[in-house]
C-alpha cells in the first residue's frame, strides 16, 4: 500500500522510492531510498519555489534510508545483510533468538539487526562467515549451551540437508 505524507502546505502526497548508487572510500554500492516531492526552498532567501520540486525526506524516511545505506555499505565490504539473515533463518527454520545464541550474541541481537540493520562491519562479517561455513556453524550449534539437545539435533539435520 502506498504511504501518504503531508507536504508543508498540508496537501497529501505519495511516498516514492528509487535506487541510488553511492561511492565512499572507493567502495561503490546501491540501495533503495524513500522520499517525497515538495517545492524547493531557496536556502539563501527562504523562498519556496512555485514550480520546481525536489526530493525531501521525513525523519522516518531518513531513519529507513540510513539503515539501508549502512547495510549496503557494509554488504559491499563482505558483511551479511538483514535480508540474507532472514532468508537463512527461514530456510533452516531457526528462530532469531536461537541464531543469536548459536553465534554467541545476546537473545535479541539477531532480531534487532533484522529490524534496524547491521550495527557494525565486524558483526556483519562475523555473521556471514559463521553461517556460510557449515563446519563452523555445526561446531557453534554443538557448543551452544543455551539450546537443548533435541533442538540441536534438528538444527544439525537442517544444516546437513542443505550441504
Amino acid at each position: 500500500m502506498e504511504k501518504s505524507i503531508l507536504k508543508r502546505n498540508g496537501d497529501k502526497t505519495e511516498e516514492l522510492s528509487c535506487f541510488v548508487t553511492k561511492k565512499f572510500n572507493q567502495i561503490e554500492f546501491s540501495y533503495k531510498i524513500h522520499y517525497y516531492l515538495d517545492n524547493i526552498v531557496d536556502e539563501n532567501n527562504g523562498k519556496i519555489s512555485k514550480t520546481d520540486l525536489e526530493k525531501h525526506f521525513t525523519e522516518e524516511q531518513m531513519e529507513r534510508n540510513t539503515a539501508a545505506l549502512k547495510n549496503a555499505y557494509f554488504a559491499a565490504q563482505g558483511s551479511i545483510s538483514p535480508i540474507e539473515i532472514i532468508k537463512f533463518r527461514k530456510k533452516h527454520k531457526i528462530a532469531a533468538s536461537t541464531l543469536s545464541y548459536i553465534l554467541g550474541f545476546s537473545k535479541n541481537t539477531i532480531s534487532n539487526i533484522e529490524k534496524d540493520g547491521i550495527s557494525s562491519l565486524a558483526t556483519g562479517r562475523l555473521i556471514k562467515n559463521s553461517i556460510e561455513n557449515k563446519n563452523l556453524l555445526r561446531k557453534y550449534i554443538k557448543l551452544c549451551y543455551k539450546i537443548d539437545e533435541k533442538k540441536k539435533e534438528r538444527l544439525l539435520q537442517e544444516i546437513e540437508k542443505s550441504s
Partner: protein
Amino acid sequence: MKEYFNTETNRSLVQSFLDRTIDILDNGGFLTFTNKAQNELDYLTITEFIEKEDIKEAIYSLVIEDYYRGINESLEGDFEVCAFRVFINHTEIYLKYGLQREGIQILIFSTHKPFLRMNQPFLN
C-alpha cells in the same frame, strides 16, 4: 547570507530563532531534510557515525554563541534561515536550517564539515 554583529539586539534575534526552534520541536514540529542535506548526512554517517538523531540533538543544544550566519528579518522568505557551527562527536559541522514562517516544518539545508573557517561573531 547576512552576518549579524555582536550586539544585544542581534543576540536577541538569534535567541528568538532558537526559542522558536524548540517551540516547534516541542509542539509536534518535525525535521525535514532536503536532498542536499540528506546526501551530506549520508557522508557523515559513513565517515563520522553521525546520524539524524545527532543532528536533532545538536539543534536542541544550540546556543547563541554557535551562530554563524543568517536570519532574514525582512519577512520576504517563507522560511527564516540560519547557519550555525556545531561540534558533534568532536566533529565540526556546518549546520544550516530554516523555520517555516507559517507552519511547523524545520527544513535542514546543510549538514557538512565546513569548507572554510567559520567565524562566530557572538563567541567573543
